[in-house]
Each structure stands twice: as C-alpha cells, then as structure tokens.
C-alpha cells in the first residue's frame, strides 16, 4: 500500500518533472517522454479563450493539488475489483489501480491465437518496431496539452494487437480504478493495432471508489486496418471529485468499420475527445455517446471526424440527460477534405433538461472542402414531451413512472447501438442507477426486445 502522507503534492503543471520513470521503457520512449514534457510546458493548459475550451474551465483542475502515480501497485481486494467491474465481461483484462498495473488482478491467460495483449513496456521491448511505428503517431501532442502531458508522465499502459484476418469475439477490458487513497494523477495509455480484415473490441472502464480529487488523463490510439472491424467503448464512472480527460485518436484504412461508444456516467469534469480520421475509401465511423452529469458535474464531448478519402460514412449520435445543476457540452466538427467526395456524414445531438438549473451547449461545426457531399446535423435541447407524458398517464402510469420511462427511453436509444450484448446490458443497468425515478424502472428494463 502506498503511503501518501510523505508525498509532495503539486499542481498539474509540475507533474512531468515529478512523475517517476519506474517503468522500464526503451531509450527512444524515454526520449519521447522528455520531449513531451518540454512541449507540455510550452503549451500550458488550454484557457477559456481557446475556442475548443470555451465552455469548459480548467481553473479548478489547475488549483487541485495532485500526486503523481507510480511505485508498486496499491493492493485492492479482488472482491472489490469484481464488484466495481462491469458485469458480464469475462474476456482478457488488465486492471490498473491508481495508475499502476496490478498483475494479480489482471488476467491475460489463454489468449486466442492472433491476439496479443501486453503491458505497453513489455510490448515496447518485445515488439519494438511495431510499437515504435505506431506509438504517438496519431496522438503526437504537438498541439494538445493533455496528450503531451500523458506522454510526459507515461507509466504502464496497454498494448493490443490483432493479427490479419483474426476475429476476436470477446471484448478486451481495461479497468482503471482510482481508490481514493491519494489525490493521484494517472495517465492511462492504450495502443490498439487491428490488422487488415481483423475484428476486435476493447472496453475502457474508469471507476473511482473514493471521494478524493484526482485526475485521469487518458490517451488511446487505434489503428483500424483495411476491412477491419473495431469497436471501442469508454465508460466513465467517476465521483464528484474526479477530473477525467480522454483523447481517442483513430486512423481508419479502406473499408474499415470503427465504433466508439462513450458512456459518461460520472465525474466532476469529464472531457471526452474522439477523433477518427478516415484515410481509406469506404470507411464507416460511428461515434455514439451518452452523458449523464448530475449535481454540479460538467461533461464535455468534443468530436472531430476527418474525412480524408472518398466514399466514407460517419455517424455521430450523442445524447445528454442533464439533472440538477449539471452542464453538458457537445461540439461536433466534421472536416471533409477536398478529395473526400461522396462523403456521407450525419451528426445528431439531443439534450434532455430535467431541471431548471441544468444547462446544455451544443455546436455543430462543418468544414467542407469537397463539393459532392451529404452532411446533415441536428441538435435539440428540450424537456420531456408533455403529450407523451399525458398519453402514458392516461394509460394508468403515475406521473413518476411516466417520466421515468420517458427518460429511460431517451437514454436507452444510444445504448441500443452497442452491438456487444453484455456491454449493452451492463451499461443499461448502470444507466438505471443514475436516473431519476430509478425505483420505478425495473418493470421497463430488459423489455426492449418485446
């Protein structure tokens, strides 16, 4: 167990210089780490006058004392971990406790042929060329402070490789638990390479157990090979004291399919950035998300879909349910290059305000340089439909049950796009726990199939 009392606390800006390099990385990675620290110092944290951060203030993060992650894994009872994990995901898993990989809690036994799942440091040693060709290529951090910070403070991460033509049915789980024993700053990193015509799915799950301020600053890079099919899910289930910043960078080759599912269920400040780049023709990208801030939580989703090849499709479906004094932000940028003719892009953002004090901001941003494209976008911010409420009440449902059912249906629509049934079910159950009138929802849940 880490003793926290004798550790020096610092601000986020001090982290790169103070984070221990106790994970054995090869020299080229150590060099990258130092360069990223320099870049982070140059960039500083984004300010409100940065258009991309207009609705999201980092002032409280900047003034929060933090402790760099590192050292030996903080022990955690397996029962606690299993209770915290999303149920039904029984595939390979890596478990990080306060940013440190726990070998005991992870399970990477009997991986199917063609699937490699390794701690990043081990992959960097055993598959140096492969890692070197991909790591930091999509997430170079040149302009993004949090990406630079992640690389600068790199600890252990996750490496996944799926060989050509291999079809992995069970999702790979990366579970990161913040115990709340210290005000830790962790920088989870995931590199996923799916070779041509392969198929895989990864779930990143961020859970905080205690009520201590902490920072989770995630960077994920995913390479989707030609004709490959990759699904990525991110569950953010942190407490009212947590800052959770994530950057997901994806490169899609021709005829590939990529789906990103984001379930933002909790965290004081959650910033969810998803950036697929379609570089080959015939690619399809789905960005699906649900944000449920409560209390005074602030959830901000920033999408940037780049069409750099002809005949690709992208779909953005984000929905927010805003309770109490919560604030939801959605920004969806679609960038269509001049050569990306026949692009078909749809963006939809729906917000349901359940309280007079809740707030939503939504902003579509289209940058289109090709002339033969179809880009549609729509955004709504509204309350529950009074007609629908009356209809359900005229069918014997109490006001609370009718409201609960309508809210549940609104949220559930996004979850229905998740192909992985165990993940969909697990997130549905979590969703119900987060909703108002949850005691009344039991009879409605699980009935979607009829």
């Amino acid at each position, binding site marked *: 167990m880490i003793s926290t009392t004798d550790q020096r606390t610092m601000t986020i800006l001090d982290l790169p210089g103070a984070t221990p390099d106790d994970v054995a990385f090869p020299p080229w990675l150590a060099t990258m780490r130092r360069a990223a620290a320099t870049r982070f110092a140059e960039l500083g944290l984004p300010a409100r006058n940065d258009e991309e951060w207009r609705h999201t203030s980092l002032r409280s993060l900047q003034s929060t004392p933090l402790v760099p992650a590192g050292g030996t894994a903080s022990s955690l009872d397996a029962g606690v971990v299993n209770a915290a994990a999303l149920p039904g995901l029984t595939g390979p898993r890596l478990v990080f406790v306060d940013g440190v990989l726990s070998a005991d809690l992870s399970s990477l036994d009997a991986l199917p042929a063609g699937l490699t799942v390794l701690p990043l440091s081990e992959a960097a040693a055993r598959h140096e060329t492969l890692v070197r060709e991909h790591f930091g290529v999509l997430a170079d951090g040149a302009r993004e402070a949090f990406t630079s910070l992640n690389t600068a403070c790199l600890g252990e991460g996750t490496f996944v490789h799926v060989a050509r033509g291999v079809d992995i049915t069970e999702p790979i789980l990366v579970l990161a638990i913040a115990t709340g024993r210290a005000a830790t700053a962790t920088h989870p990193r995931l590199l996923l390479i799916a070779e041509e015509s392969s198929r895989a799915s990864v779930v990143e799950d961020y859970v905080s157990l205690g009520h201590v301020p902490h920072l989770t600053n995630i960077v994920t890079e995913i390479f989707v090979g030609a004709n490959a099919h990759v699904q990525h899910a991110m569950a953010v289930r942190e407490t009212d004291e947590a800052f959770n910043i994530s950057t997901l960078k994806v490169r899609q080759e021709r005829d590939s399919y990529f789906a990103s599912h984001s379930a933002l269920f909790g965290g004081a400040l959650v910033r969810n950035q998803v950036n697929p780049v379609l570089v080959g023709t015939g690619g399809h990208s789905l960005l699906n998300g649900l944000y449920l801030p409560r209390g005074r939580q602030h959830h901000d989703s920033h999408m940037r879909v780049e069409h750099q090849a002809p005949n690709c499709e992208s779909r953005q479906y984000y929905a927010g349910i805003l309770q109490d004094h919560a604030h939801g932000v959605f920004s969806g940028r679609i960038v269509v290059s001049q050569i990306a003719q026949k692009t078909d892009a749809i963006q939809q953002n729906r917000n349901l305000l359940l309280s007079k004090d809740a707030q939503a901001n939504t902003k579509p941003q289209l940058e289109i340089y090709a002339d033969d494209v179809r880009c549609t976008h729509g955004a709504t911010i509204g309350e529950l*439909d009074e007609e*629908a409420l009356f209809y359900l009440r*005229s069918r014997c449902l109490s*006001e609370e049950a009718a409201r609960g059912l309508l809210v549940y249906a609104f949220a559930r629509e996004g979850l229905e796009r998740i192909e992985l049934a165990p993940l969909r079910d697990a997130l549905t159950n979590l969703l119900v726990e987060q909703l108002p009138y949850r005691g009344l929802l039991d009879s409605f849940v699980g009935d979607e199939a009829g």
Partner: protein
Amino acid sequence: MTAMLEIRNLHVSVEGQEILRGLDLTIKPGEVHSIMGPNGSGKSTLAQVLAGRDSYDITDGSVVFRGKDLLDMDPDERACEGVFLAFQYPVEIPGVKTTQFLKAAVNAIRAHHGEDELDAADLMGHFREKMKLVHIEPDLLRRSVNEGFSGGEKKRAEIFQMAVLDPALCILDETDSGLDIDALKIVADGVNSMRSPDRGFLVITHYQRLLNYIVPDFVHVLVDGRIVQSGGKELALQLEEKGYGWINAPVGAGA
C-alpha cells in the same frame, strides 16, 4: 340503473376562450352514446377533459364517474378507475414499446384494486389474446409506440390497449378517421366484442359511417360547445343526409 357518468353544466376554456359552454350528458352502464359534431365544435376537448388533460380550464360544472368526482382525480387515477380514451391523434413515443408500458399499466390497475401483480408470462398471454381481436401482429407492439404506424395501425393499437385495460367507460375520439372500410370493420368488431351490460361507450365521430358498425343507443349533436340535439340512432342518419347546417341554430341545452 344509476348513471356511470354524469356531466353537469360543464364549461371549459382554453386561453380565455370558452370551448365547452354548458354541456350535460349522462351515460348508464351498457349504453353506447355517440357525439357528433362539426370540426371545432369541442368534441376532442370533451374527450381530453374527461381523461384529465390539464391544459384546459374547467370554469364551471361537475363530472361524476361511478359516484366519484372525476375532475378531482389525476389522469392515471381516472385510468385506474376505469376511464379509457382512444386518442384522435395517438402520440408517437420514440424508444417506448407498447408492451413495455402496458405491462406496467395492467399492474397499476391491479394494484389500484388491491390485486396481485401478474407476471410477464401471464401478461403476454393476455396481450396475445387481445391482439387477435383487432388483428395486430406482435411485431407492431415491439416497435416504439405509434412511431411509423400507419393511420389504421395507430387506431387498431388504441383499441387493442383498450381491450387489454378492460375499462368501464370507453371514450373513442374519431377512431374512424383515416380508416378504410376493412380497417373500420376490424375496429368496430373489436369495440362491439367489448360491449357488455357493465360498460359504457362514448363514441365521438364526425361521420355517420362508423355508426353503421357500432350502433349507438343515443346520438347527441355538439355544436359550439353545447349539445343542441339528442335522439336515437336515426338522428345520425338525418345528419348524414342533411348535414350539420340543418341544426345549426342552437336550440338550448341538450335533452
């Protein structure tokens, strides 16, 4: 026999404009009453007010249902007590399946009457039986409520729900509108199969056509928020022949 529904001198306004202007109507168990009237005469207003829609101001009058003050009840309480409205324009509810809320509805009624809840299997059996009544396929009920339903499907789904909930008073608001003759017969058969000595019907329609299939005991003509004439089923035929112009001059409150 005592009245099931007793409406006395009902005055209803919307945004300061009076729509129902002193309406009286009494329905006894087993009776089928029809209200006919031109567009805008207040038929849907009456139906919605009886079901408990709160966007109307009730400025005068009373409604007693089975001895209780109906206007004092919430919409769900009225439904549990046995009032059912088949809507003229059933609302589409994305993401909510009919079976999903109907299970809760049946159990809410049972709880209201102190009965045990039914389990999912019993409920589905009950639903299947009623689906046959109005020729509904199970697939329709697995879709979001009314979303993408044809006009006929919406109306049949309403009658299906009515059959499932087994109400004492059935209010049908223009259930015939938008139906072709085959669909009209299916809906009418469904309604007729529910006729019983214990149940009352208020069938609202603009056209006489429906009343060839659901034969009413009484016909009332609503013009400008008042019942201006009441009679037997032959009154509907007269209206069909002569139009509403024939009785346009209000002749005081209804019979």
